[in-house]
């Protein structure tokens, strides 16, 4: 190995020394777990439809059930294990959003219900909300004036 003189040389060397995440395996697990979660959602949706609910109600029921399940599994210390295995597969569907709100709520309960649970609940989900809502407002304005 040659001598390292500059910071850039060191950073290149570190890059080469550090193992990469197993991307193929991660993608595969994310794909099938994510697909499974969405399929469960679809089953609930179809079942509600069969019971005579309209489309909007069916979507709402699916969201409520998946959020409820994810919150329950988070509290039971199971969701983090699923997340570790599936990565984006459990993170991207609405289950990941529920997990990102419930987990800080549990973690910061020790700081009280106001500044702990209340104040820290959105530390992880906050950016998603801010940029999600901002984007929808911009899209809404564009749609109102140009479409």
């Amino acid at each position, binding site marked *: *190995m*040659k*001598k*390292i003189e500059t*910071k*850039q040389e*060191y*950073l290149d*060397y*570190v890059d080469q*020394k*550090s*193992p*990469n*995440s*197993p991307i193929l395996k*991660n993608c595969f697990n994310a794909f099938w777990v994510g697909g499974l979660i969405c399929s469960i959602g679809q089953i609930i949706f179809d079942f509600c439809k069969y019971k005579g609910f309209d489309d909007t109600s069916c979507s709402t029921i699916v969201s409520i059930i998946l959020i409820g399940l994810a919150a329950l599994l*988070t*509290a039971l*210390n199971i*969701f*983090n*294990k*699923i*997340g*570790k295995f*599936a*990565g984006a597969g*459990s*993170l991207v569907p609405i289950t*990941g959003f529920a*997990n*990102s709100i*419930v*987990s*800080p709520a*549990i*973690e*910061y309960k*020790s700081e009280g219900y106001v500044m702990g649970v209340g104040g820290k609940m959105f530390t*992880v989900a906050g950016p998603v909300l801010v940029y999600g809502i901002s984007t929808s407002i911009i899209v809404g304005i564009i749609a109102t004036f140009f479409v």
Partner: protein
Amino acid sequence: MNKIGNQTIMFSNPPYILETSSIVGPKEAEGPLAKYFDQCLEDEFWGEKTWEKAESKIIKENSNAVISKSGIPATDIDYCFAGDLLNQCISSSFGLREINIPFFGIFGACSTFVEGMSLGSVFIDSGAAKKVLCATSSHFCSAEKQFRFPLELGNQRPPSAQWTVTGSGAAILSNDNIGKECPRITYITPGKIIDMGVKDANNMGAAMAPAALDTLVTHFRDTGRKPSFYDAIITGDLGYIGKEILIEMAETKGYNIKKNYNDCGVLIFDKEKQDTHAGGSGCGCVGSVFSGYLYKMLNEHKLNRILLIATGALMNSTSSQQGESIPGIAHAIAIENL
């Protein structure tokens, strides 16, 4: 006591490490060093309501344990040097608020244990103190909460990430050995802050390795010793990646440490079985591995001369979010059976 070379201190009457004690959490208790620790906890809360309280209890109980093991009354201990990873070092100050020993709170991130032992040795050899207590702790859950994400969040850790050790190490340094045979601290080489521009908080080993290299090379230059002088050169906690980097970079500087070098973060966990990625980290890692494993090896004369280099990443979550790179530090102490 006098300074030799650029930054090393040689003790005229090397302080004795009279006694050590270690407590570790349940995951560490499943690791390869389990049998060397004094106490292994069954759960991470240890009967407390918060992670922070649990960590305070760990350092408190461990400090009490080392005092009672040594047989010295607490009132005979002149000063205490302690620190940890939590903001403003609350584990140490809360845990030791009832111990009634003059207290120096120190912060050197994961290098805190050796920093405390270095300062304590100088106090002893200068005559300012006869007995000194050094202690550190870290807790996986409180560290995750402060530096990363809530524990229940379903995210993935990159393979270069290290696992914060739940545990504590404590040692009593003394100017006399009260009739016991015990290892002594002969040299200390306090390190400089070295920043090679690594920004990835999930790759601490790479961020700290240059600091470890600088201290290692300086120690050999200052003392005139060679790597082969030591039975073991131990860093804490570069982990697997940092360990490899240090070996290779030391070689380019003309020091071959391959044969007798290891790292506390590598020793404490079984990487394959315990899913700890790049190895252990945290103040409690080098603290518990030294107090548990290495001290016993020294006492049993399986090791007679070791160079312990504790490394620290001097960052916090704000500096990381602001895109700052991670300054590293490494302090070395030579411990020998004379």
